[in-house]
């Protein structure tokens, strides 16, 4: 969907909202002069790009460790013993169950992260 500009609508919106009152800038400056600036002495140890890179590397490392823990634990659980009443002869059952669990965990995390993006703006009129 290509959104085209609408000069007519722009003029209508401008007509409705008008401009700032004549004393607006003075009122702001009066309030500003009474306020101290928040400390600007803070200097980051690393540039923002490096910071993001470190954060990404850290996240990947944590995720890899968690995934390994999950895979190793699940491979040692031997699900067939938990289901003695069912005579499964399929050799890859453990792997299938492990895959399903991992799939749902990742799917749930992804869905939760996706919902967070819009959650703050879900409140309607």
């Amino acid at each position, binding site marked *: 969907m290509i959104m085209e500009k609408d000069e007519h609508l722009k003029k*209508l*919106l401008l007509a409705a*909202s008008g401009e700032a009152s004549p004393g607006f800038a003075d009122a702001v400056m009066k309030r500003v002069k009474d306020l101290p600036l928040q400390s600007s002495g803070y200097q980051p140890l690393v540039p923002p790009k490096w910071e993001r890179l470190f954060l990404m590397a850290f996240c990947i490392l944590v995720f890899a460790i968690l995934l390994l823990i999950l895979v190793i634990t699940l491979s040692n659980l031997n699900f067939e013993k938990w289901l003695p009443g069912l005579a499964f002869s399929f050799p890859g059952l453990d792997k299938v169950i492990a895959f399903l669990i991992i799939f749902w965990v990742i799917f749930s995390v992804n869905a939760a992260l996706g919902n967070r993006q819009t959650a703050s*703006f879900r409140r309607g*009129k």
Partner: protein
Amino acid sequence: MTDLEEAIIIKNVLAGDAQAFSILVNTYKDMAVQLSYNILLNREDAEEAAQDAFVKCYQFLSTYKAEARFATWFYRIVVNTALNKRKLKKYYPEAINEAEGEEWGLLTDHHHEAVIKTEQKKFIQLALSSMNVRERLCLTLYYLNELSVKEIREITGIPPSNIKVLLFRGRKNFYQELQKHIKTEITSLL
């Protein structure tokens, strides 16, 4: 004002030159008030929210990172301030006043010419007040402030696909509501 000029002004403000901030105020005051107004639909509250946004901007200017445009960063403050104000107050938009006799002279389409002669501002405000706040916000940012969908996403946090739907629906609703109010007014006059 170019990005470079803005960067110099910001640097001066951070160095302690509070007066340099007045250049930013004068550049963005109208846009801030217009944006706040289209969220709050109340003139006094809009001016107050815009002032609060400027004060917050000044206080937290050291946290602004030059990676994003200053306008985008500032609009986000304005939107959040106005939305918080709207949330905190049990909100009653101001009564739509009778037209103040201002000569807007902005419309060209023959369909809207009657509006110029009568109460254009009142009809537009009525049409806006019957719309969803998210539609009004997206319409203002896109059509009035001429920001891109990407910038609107950065300001509001709404996904681009939703922004496009809100813009399409909002524009349609706005014109429909405007026509409806004009028709009602004409009918009542006859």
